[in-house]
């Protein structure tokens, strides 16, 4: 199975919770004790094993705070960009 990882940029996140709502695999949670520099509740990526880099969190993030990465075997060609089409 494809494995992925996301990074959430604290500078842009406003804590709306869309990423938590749209992650079908429950990889993102808002723990409630982490805050962004602006004082909003910060979501945290917790589940490295279950993330499959579907990038729905990055689509639905209104502030473009999320970047999605995918793990591939070294030497493979770059896979097709799943964000297009």
């Amino acid at each position, binding site marked *: 199975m494809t494995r*992925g*990882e996301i990074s959430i940029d604290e*500078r*842009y*996140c*406003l*804590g*709306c*919770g*869309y990423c938590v*709502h*749209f992650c079908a695999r429950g990889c993102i949670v808002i723990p409630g004790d982490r805050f962004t520099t*602006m004082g*909003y509740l910060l979501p945290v990526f917790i589940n490295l094993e279950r993330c499959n*880099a579907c*990038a*729905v969190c*990055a*689509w*639905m*993030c*209104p*502030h*473009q705070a*999320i*970047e*999605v*990465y*995918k*793990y*591939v*075997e*070294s030497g*493979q060609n*770059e*896979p097709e*960009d*799943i*964000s*297009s089409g």
Partner: protein
Amino acid sequence: MEKIKVRGAPKSWQRSTSPLTICPGCQHGVVAELLCDAVDELGIQGNTIVISGIGCAGIDAFMVDMDAFIMCPHGRTCDVATGIKRALFGKPIVVALQGDGDCIAIGAGSLISAALRGEKITVIMANNANYGTTGGQLAPTTLLDQVTSTTPEGRDPGLAGYPAHVPEMLVPFRGVAYAARGAVNTPANYQRTKRYLKAALQKQIDNIGLSFVEILSACPANWHRTPVECLKWIEEKMIPEYPLGEFKNADRID
């Protein structure tokens, strides 16, 4: 194992050093992201001019990194878009990025005149069912029985009229090449709306006529709901009133 980036901000997204000035959960950011994605996929970033009026949709224009973005008086976005398109001999791709108040309340005359003339521009209307910037007053797109700050007991049709359906209204105009309505409340609707936006921009590239896309977007601050409840409200209340889909798709105008 190697880590590669599959998705970040679109190429034509303007990354500022500070957070965006939209409210938490406001989907205007998604509307701008869809426009950036559509423009990137068509490869017209250096040739696109985005025009925006006053209102929350005006913030969208600050998020795009294209040829130019221009702010104009409230409701006159289609007029300014027409002027730019004609003054530059029809060369640039001109996108009028509007809110519902800008497009169908104050700018209704401009939109209808542009549709009558069949201007080769693309109009994007983000519909959040109220006037977001000024504090959630009644707009033409407000639903019946929706509570706003000027209709505290819900919109009464006898007093305040009925909601405006803009893409359906534009279908009989002969100058209109494309009219569609999308939403961004689910990933499926997100992808569908991106297809509509690409089709609308393609109509302008092919020089056919005016193309119009309405996008339903959440406004948690003025609907007094949490962002996730807003998505549910769009699904349950707004989509039955404003059905999604393509209403007109003309290949040529006689």
